[in-house]
């Protein structure tokens, strides 16, 4: 009888604590737990399903939202290559590939692969094929071929959860998945801080 009462009390306390406990603060804002996602990812082989929260291994996670048809993402290729060269030991790089709802920004997995690997896709005529709003052969993207994970978000569902304002857009998570740097919250950062400076600062280099 005493055991039953004890079990009953414990159950009530557990259930009550579930209701009383504050909800986990999940969102793209700094200090919040990053919204988790399950999506297909490409790392050079087949597209495979990944879960963001299973990637955390204690290192910083740098998430960069890109659109293969966005001219600024095209240019961002160089900066990403340079940053990966500098930080790949201490930072996990993930590119989330979206397809902005802008005419001419109709991306595909083939285009994403070509953008990452710098392989031929489309041509340099303005005919809708290829990267850069269908104006350029993806093989001509500035910077080196990328070697890290590209996540398929061509339906923009992750972008919605992360309140993406546009591309390219950067967010840095700590080793446990908490957002520590969000490009849109520049008021919280040292003046003029770019994502590369932020990575260096968070790694203790600056």
């Amino acid at each position: 009888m005493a055991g039953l009462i004890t079990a009953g009390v414990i159950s009530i306390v557990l259930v009550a604590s579930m209701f009383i406990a504050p909800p986990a603060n999940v969102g793209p804002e700094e200090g919040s737990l990053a919204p988790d996602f399950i999506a297909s990812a490409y790392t050079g082989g087949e597209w495979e399903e990944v879960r963001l929260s299973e990637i955390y291994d204690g290192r910083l996670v740098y998430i960069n939202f890109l659109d293969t048809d966005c001219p600024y993402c095209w240019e961002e290729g160089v900066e990403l290559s340079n940053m990966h060269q500098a930080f790949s030991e201490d930072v996990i790089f993930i590119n989330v590939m979206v397809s902005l709802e802008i005419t001419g920004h109709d991306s595909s997995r083939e285009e994403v692969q070509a953008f990452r690997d710098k392989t031929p896709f489309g041509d340099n005529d303005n005919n809708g094929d290829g990267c850069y709003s269908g104006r350029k052969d993806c093989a001509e993207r500035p910077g080196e071929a990328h070697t890290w994970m590209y996540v398929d978000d061509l339906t923009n569902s992750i972008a919605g959860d992360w309140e993406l304002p546009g591309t390219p857009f950067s967010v840095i998570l700590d080793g446990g998945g908490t957002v520590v740097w969000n490009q849109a919250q520049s008021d919280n950062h040292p003046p003029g801080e770019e994502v590369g400076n932020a990575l260096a600062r968070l790694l203790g280099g600056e």
Partner: protein
Amino acid sequence: MASALTDPVLLFFVAALLGSSFLFANGRAKDGAEGTLRMLDGSLAFTITGILASGWTWVIYNDMIRNPLGGEFCATEGLVQCGSVIGDPRYNNLFGMSWGSLGLAAFAALFFLILCLRMDMHAKWVSKYVDYAWWMGLAGVPFLFLLIGIEVIVVKHICPFCTIAHLALIGYLVTVWMLRERRENSAWH
């Protein structure tokens, strides 16, 4: 497009265009100085509509491009289907200046000329100012064709607020053309 048609700001601009047209048509139906004055009111209303519409596209531009990410990025679709046009970094500016800010400055200059005419329609310089108002308005036409061409042919998307500014310029030109006719026919006073 349904969401665009229920946007209160857009509806306000459409009403402003209709109001400007009404003022002008009303003036045209009247003879003499009173008719000219009403026509100038219509012209003035078109320039004010142009100022407000250009200003609004500038607000959208700043909202999408400048704040808070510091510049160079492709905006997601934003206010009333203007993301494709105003959010496109290749075409949303002329030498780094947004089309909205340029339109604002141009319409402000046209507003000044028409306001001068409206304030003293019997002055000696009126004839010259009508010509200035015409030629300055006409100078905007190549840009109007350029922007419509970019919207229709290149980005294949129409931003309704840009269209309001374009229509305001066309309305303005029609009114000034009629004012010039009135002057030529000695029907100004």
